[in-house]
């Protein structure tokens, strides 16, 4: 079965697009805008007269001048030079749950009834939007066991930041903030679980894995004290291993008066199977652009839906959406709220897609998605473990859930081809570059696929066959792996430039000033 997969012949589109800043000709126009009518001009005169002289722009911005078809063509080409989830078997980006975003939900999200409404409209005129938000809150309460959600976070890290701010507000309200200045996380939790509490002013203690890959519980117990503000962790962690003693971790932190946050950016494998509430957590978050099907959009707009138990609800950002039995409303009257972390009340178009997706799945469908994601993962794992050079660390004999952190350590030792080499070679077969691991790399030469329920058995077979081919090449012709990519839109880039202040350039204007340094 495994050897029957025929790898496709693939080459990425190559358009060698110039930078838009060097395209076009003086005088070309991409769009005309509605200029003020003559009557208006006559009545008010020149626009200039309303801009104080010292604040007038003296020189036009050096933006490109292109006609509309040329602008469109340029960005269509750039789109083609991007490998979307819909264009490939995107098992590659583990921890990201590259699941299918149903097209019908996209059509719904683009209707003027969502796209062209203003958040400050009279509540009577946005009852539909408020209903979606309110209902989604109820759905997520049921899925998590939490008592109240906020959607103000535009991404998962943003939700983790809300949590850090809730920790601050909660301990402040108890008069203990001065004392409680430590947050504990685990090294296999997302970097945001360490970075956001640090930004909020906490000292961060990071637990390393024990011999079984679980966060070291003795280290946790040693870290817990009257200074503990809270714990921020995932489970299963990026390794895919469910930590069966999670309750004990939660208890250890609760015993010293800390709060426990469950980073559930990726809930996919345990949706409807296990909830934050039963494990004792005080708060959790879901990435609606991962588990809940809203598209990833080249890194957003997204949503980190953040939920808490009742005792923390009063601290959530303002406003929340309420319902009095007849009408939905925005509740701004929340004196204990931590305030705001973003304007308005969330990426409503993302919430709409999530609402529609949950409505299309129901309880059975969510559970089916979880089951199939775990089946897919264990099936793929079996295929990958048969590939020369692949190993996995920790928890021998334990069943992983939605993903596995594999290692090319052996391949690297045997052939000199490490995970970054494989990552560059695999795209020559038309699949997205895989996620290696968040930093630091605890598992050497890591890679982390996630075959969520979107992917068929044949997709899993194909993806495994790509890695099998790259492994074979590493053992027989490592040069082809080392010099990859060969079928991408560009060749190996010069990474030194990215860290060199004399040569890096974040804008075309900076590039023009430094272009000689790059020769």
């Amino acid at each position, binding site marked *: 079965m495994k050897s029957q997969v025929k790898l496709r012949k693939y080459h990425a589109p190559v358009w060698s697009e110039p930078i838009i800043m060097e395209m076009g000709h003086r005088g070309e126009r991409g769009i005309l805008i509605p200029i003020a009518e003559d009557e208006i001009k006559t009545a008010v005169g020149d626009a200039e007269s309303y801009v104080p002289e010292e604040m007038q722009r003296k020189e036009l911005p050096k933006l490109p001048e292109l006609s509309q078809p040329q602008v469109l063509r340029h960005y269509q080409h750039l789109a083609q030079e991007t490998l979307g989830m819909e264009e490939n078997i995107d098992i590659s980006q583990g921890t990201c749950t590259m699941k299918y975003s149903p097209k019908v939900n996209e059509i719904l999200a683009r209707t003027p009834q969502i796209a062209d409404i203003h958040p400050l409209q009279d509540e009577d005129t946005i009852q539909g939007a408020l209903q979606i938000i309110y209902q989604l809150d109820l759905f997520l309460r049921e899925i998590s066991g939490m008592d109240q959600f906020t959607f103000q976070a535009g991404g998962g890290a943003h939700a983790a930041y809300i949590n850090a701010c809730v920790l601050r507000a909660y301990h402040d309200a108890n008069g203990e903030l001065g004392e409680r200045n430590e947050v504990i996380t685990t090294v296999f939790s997302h970097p945001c679980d*360490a970075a956001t509490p640090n930004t909020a002013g906490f000292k961060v203690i990071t637990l390393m894995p024990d011999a079984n890959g679980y966060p070291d519980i003795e280290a946790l117990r040693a870290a817990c004290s009257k200074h503990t503000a809270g714990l921020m962790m995932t489970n299963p962690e990026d390794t895919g291993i469910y930590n069966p003693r999670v309750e004990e971790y939660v208890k250890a932190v609760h015993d010293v008066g800390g709060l426990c946050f469950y980073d559930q950016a990726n809930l996919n494998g345990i949706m409807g*199977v296990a909830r934050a509430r039963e494990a004792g957590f005080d708060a959790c978050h879901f990435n609606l652009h991962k588990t809940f099907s809203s598209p990833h959009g080249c890194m957003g707009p997204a949503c980190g839906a953040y939920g808490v138990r009742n005792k923390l609800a009063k601290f959530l950002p303002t406003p929340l959406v309420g319902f009095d039995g007849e009408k939905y409303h925005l509740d701004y009257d929340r004196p204990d709220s931590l305030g705001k972390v973003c*304007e308005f009340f969330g990426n409503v178009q993302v919430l709409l897609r999530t609402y529609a997706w949950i409505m299309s799945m129901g309880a059975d469908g969510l559970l089916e998605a979880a089951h199939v994601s775990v089946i897919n993962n264990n099936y793929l794992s079996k295929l990958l473990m048969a590939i020369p050079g692949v190993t996995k660390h920790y928890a021998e004999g334990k069943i992983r859930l939605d993903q596995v952190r594999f290692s090319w350590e052996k391949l690297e030792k045997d052939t000199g081809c490490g995970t970054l080499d494989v990552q560059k070679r695999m795209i020559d077969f038309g699949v997205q570059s895989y996620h290696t691991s968040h930093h630091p790399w605890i598992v050497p030469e890591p890679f982390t696929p996630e075959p969520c329920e979107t992917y068929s058995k044949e997709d899993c077979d194909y993806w495994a066959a790509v890695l099998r081919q790259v492994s074979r090449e590493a053992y027989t012709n490592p040069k082809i792996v080392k010099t990859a990519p060969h079928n991408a839109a560009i060749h190996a880039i010069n990474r030194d430039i990215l860290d060199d202040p004399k040569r890096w350039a974040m804008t075309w204007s900076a590039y023009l000033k430094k272009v000689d340094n790059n020769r």
Partner: protein
Amino acid sequence: MVKKESVIYPYIPNSVPEIKEEMLKEIGVKEAETLYREIPNNLRFKRKLNLPKPILAEWELKRHVMDILGKNKTCEENLNFLGGGCWQHYVPAVCDEIASRSEFLTAYAGEVYPDLGKYQAFFEFQSEIGELVGMDVVSLPTYSWGCAAGNAVRMASRMTARNEVLLPETISPERLAIIRTFCKSAVRKAHIDVRLISYDSKTGLLDLESLENEISCKTAAVYIENPSYLGFIESRSERISKIAHDNGAMSIVGVDPISLGVVAPPADYGADIVVGTAQTLGIHMNCGGGSVGFIASRDEEKYVAEYPSLLISISNTVQEGEYGFGICAYQRTSYASRDKAKDWVGTTTGLWTIVAAVYMALMGPCGFKEIGETIIQKAHYAIKLLSEIGGISLPFSSNSFKEFIVNFDGAGMSVTDVNKALLSHSIYGGKDISREFPELGNSALYCITEIHSRQDIENLVSALREILK
């Protein structure tokens, strides 16, 4: 065993029982349930989730959702004068087209080789914003203008090793609330104190005397906005930057780039860091979901080191003449350095970044000049006509860009009542700011953009005349 009533989910190929069986067999277990054996029984969720019965057929789902959305009344069906942090500008069809390209819509965090186009579009966004604001470094955007401002204040605080920021009292209360959140710390001594500088009650402009009195060797930065939340252009911006610099503080300026075809780029009047929205650049309002904010600065190592955001640098490849791209100074980010990073970064607003790049390319220099001019003329036409209505006054409006205050004190009607009445004319009146700025009385913040025709403005005026008579 095949259950007859099994649902085959169109989004789940392996929901076909036979396939599942086959895969389970390959794995070596009998049922999916076995795969969950690591989860202790007491942590298992025992019952079925209590969710509404699913709507399986796509048509029925669409109908169900459209019925709910039908309760929203859009700014296409009604005449909208709301702004205040989310603005209705025309979204060119090409922007919608590129926003719906499946590659951009569904890609995520892939490396530059498979996702070259994404990286290039990001670099182009940075380059175009750089031209508008006059800076050589621009970040990939964060969630919103307020978040960008909060990040910038924290950058300035680290760069100056000072813990205080001065802001105008006229700042958007929403952006202020976000900045306050970002400036708080669990440790008292690490707080950045947020202090408000009063404004001239006749013009709305920042009171320079108060600024001079308040600024000190503790001040990390002075933050102002152009145009301000209340719509006027801060005419003495250069003086404000100079006062900041004279006191060893940095000058941070927040902008709406749609104004920058006619209003001076902040770099020209002394800004050290520029932040702003990009929602006005081809992005639908989305009930607030169109928010996006950028940060920009000079190209100096000490600035780059302080950005929390991803910064895309252009590079080259082993092939002569080929452009490559990558993340500049990645080690600085929290992705690389976790709690050792100075701030945090995450998934933000990539798709809007690309759409804004398209918008700026379509508009070009002439488009920005014309849109700035037309907005100013239309806004001042509205100001002129409204000022002729008895009972209405328009404070601070002589230097307005697109927003301005309409005060109804003389008319003896609350903004709430005026707006309710306008609604019956299918008009969304300006944002009620009478609670945000009680000293400004019974006032609303109106917004006029290029989408408002002369007729639209006159319709507003006649509706108000009728309501206030």
